[in-house]
């Protein structure tokens, strides 16, 4: 079987290329660890907080926090709508002594800011109420009423639009990074490997044999698919079990998404390699084809962009991969929640693989 012969050959070559293996398996872990260290601390950003029918004293207390920007809401709307419309990090509503906070929680560092300030404010409020209640107790010596007043202190009821969390920024971008590393390395290494075959003449030599074009592309897919599976298992395990990111969804589903993403990266790498004359030229495709995908992959929220840029995002494979990964890891989505992303990704892979098989006609017309 020729596919198996080519597959085995690529695997043997990979196994002997110790440096590449080290980069593929160790570099992502190193970068993730660095990111983990850097992103543990929230930076000095301001959170926009919406308030609806909240006690003026509490509002005044909240206003004292520099890192909060308060927006008073006039109309009654669902928290989700208000969050969207005014681009808020959280919304607070009050019903008697019950404060209800709804965090948008897409950017968990903003959630952290609101949460810290709110707790501080409310406990300060309760402190002053306690003091005045104590004063009343000593004045009127009617303990029953005073105690009920102390008990009537504010309670906070918390809701989250996205996953319930007390997480750091790292956790919010971890799914994106997992997808990105697999995409990047598989793209680069598979592309350079085929390019190397082309420049050393072995691809030509390969084609002067009865091998079918699809057999070459299939063998490459199989070999780098295997590499991607190994890499994914290592990266994902590291992120979940060592760096402590909680996976709300299924581990297997995360693997499946990554493997499909790797398939797209592989076929894109192979295709792009035919337009490169050297390894260096292959590297030059990174700023063009890989870097923009990072921007649109979910590190930055694109829902605020105008329609054109949102359209641009939708032609990028990493956009779908990261959408699926984020949904599974952060929101615990099952396959029914991400199937559309997967279908789009598989579509990308099929189109690119077919283009590769056809593209080999440049070297041999049959």
């Amino acid at each position: 079987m020729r596919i198996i012969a080519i597959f085995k050959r690529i695997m043997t070559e990979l196994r002997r290329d110790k440096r590449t293996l080290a980069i593929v398996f160790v570099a992502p872990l190193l970068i993730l660890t660095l990111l983990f260290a850097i992103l543990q601390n929230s930076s000095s950003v301001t959170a926009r907080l919406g308030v609806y029918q909240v006690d003026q004293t509490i509002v005044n207390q909240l206003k004292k926090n520099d890192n909060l920007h308060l927006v008073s809401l006039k109309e009654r709307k669902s928290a989700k709508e208000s969050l969207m419309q005014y681009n808020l990090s959280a919304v607070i509503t009050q019903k008697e002594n019950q404060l209800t906070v709804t965090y948008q929680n897409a950017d968990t560092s903003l959630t952290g800011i609101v949460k810290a300030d709110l707790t501080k404010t409310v406990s300060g409020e309760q402190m002053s109420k306690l003091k005045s209640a104590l004063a009343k107790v000593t004045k009127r010596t009617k303990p029953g009423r005073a105690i009920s007043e102390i008990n009537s202190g504010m309670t906070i009821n918390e809701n989250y639009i996205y996953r319930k969390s007390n997480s750091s920024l790292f956790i919010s971008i971890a799914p994106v990074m997992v997808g990105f590393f697999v995409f990047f390395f598989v793209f680069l290494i598979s592309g350079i490997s085929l390019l190397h075959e082309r420049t050393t003449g072995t691809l030509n030599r390969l084609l002067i044999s009865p091998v079918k074009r699809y057999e070459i592309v299939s063998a490459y897919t199989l070999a780098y698919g295997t590499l991607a599976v190994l890499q994914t298992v290592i990266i994902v395990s590291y992120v979940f079990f060592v760096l402590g990111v909680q996976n709300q969804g299924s581990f297997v589903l995360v693997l499946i998404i990554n493997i499909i993403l790797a398939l797209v990266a592989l076929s894109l790498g192979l295709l792009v390699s035919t337009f490169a004359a050297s390894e260096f030229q292959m590297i030059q495709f990174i700023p063009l084809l890989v870097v923009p995908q990072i921007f649109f992959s979910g590190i930055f929220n694109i829902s605020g962009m105008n329609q054109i840029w949102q359209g641009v995002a939708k032609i990028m494979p990493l956009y779908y991969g990261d959408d699926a990964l984020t949904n599974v890891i952060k929101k615990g989505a099952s396959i029914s929640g991400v199937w559309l992303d997967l279908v789009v990704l598989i579509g990308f892979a099929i189109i690119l693989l077919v283009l590769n098989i056809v593209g080999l006609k440049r070297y041999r017309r049959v």
Partner: protein
Amino acid sequence: MEKVIELKNVDKHFGTNHVLNKISLTINSGQLVGLIGPSGAGKSTLIAAMLGMLRLDGGQVRLLNSDMPNRSALQNIGYMAQNDALYGNLTGLENLSFFGKLMGLSRSVLTDKIHLVSQTVDLQDHLDLRVNQYSGGMKRRLSLAIALLSDAPLLILDEPTVGIDPELRIKIWQELDKLHQQGKTVLITTHVMSEIETVDRLLMLRDGHIIADNTPTFLEKQYQVTNIESVFIKAGERYENNSHI
């Protein structure tokens, strides 16, 4: 006699460079044919055209009774490229076994064949060495061994003896003569004029034209010289003079 290679008006341009100028050529079964020409004459391009690896501007190629390009016809061709298309990270044995499997040889046949061809090219003691560590001559010999693996009726060898020392070159030619006697058709390109004296037929390619096509002895007589090197120079001069008129 059966036609093994048949070219009709094969034409190819690279930009303004007319590499193959309406070449027509027939090579019959069992011939040992030498193809010589200055570098850049189009020898490798002609071979690529024969193998169907080139998009032609015009003309047809028939190889072993199939119109080229044809994938299954490649099964019956032992090919050795001018550049050593080998996998440097693999050992000699792994290279042989990989290309053998591509040619569709079964495992049992392959083991015997590898043993045989590696002795022919005197590499039997270096098969476990990575090709990266091979010398230039060893790489050539390994490429030749790969071409011989499939026992194909047609051998197309592009510069098989470059960088190979004289002793081994003689051995390789003895092997080619043996294959020739077994009835195989062999097309070989070379720069070494002295080794080509023994071929059945000599083709001289220049500027995309075949400027001489006959037995070495006939050509030596025609140009009134005693060796092929002089034929090569004289034929070249005559061609240059004619093309300038």
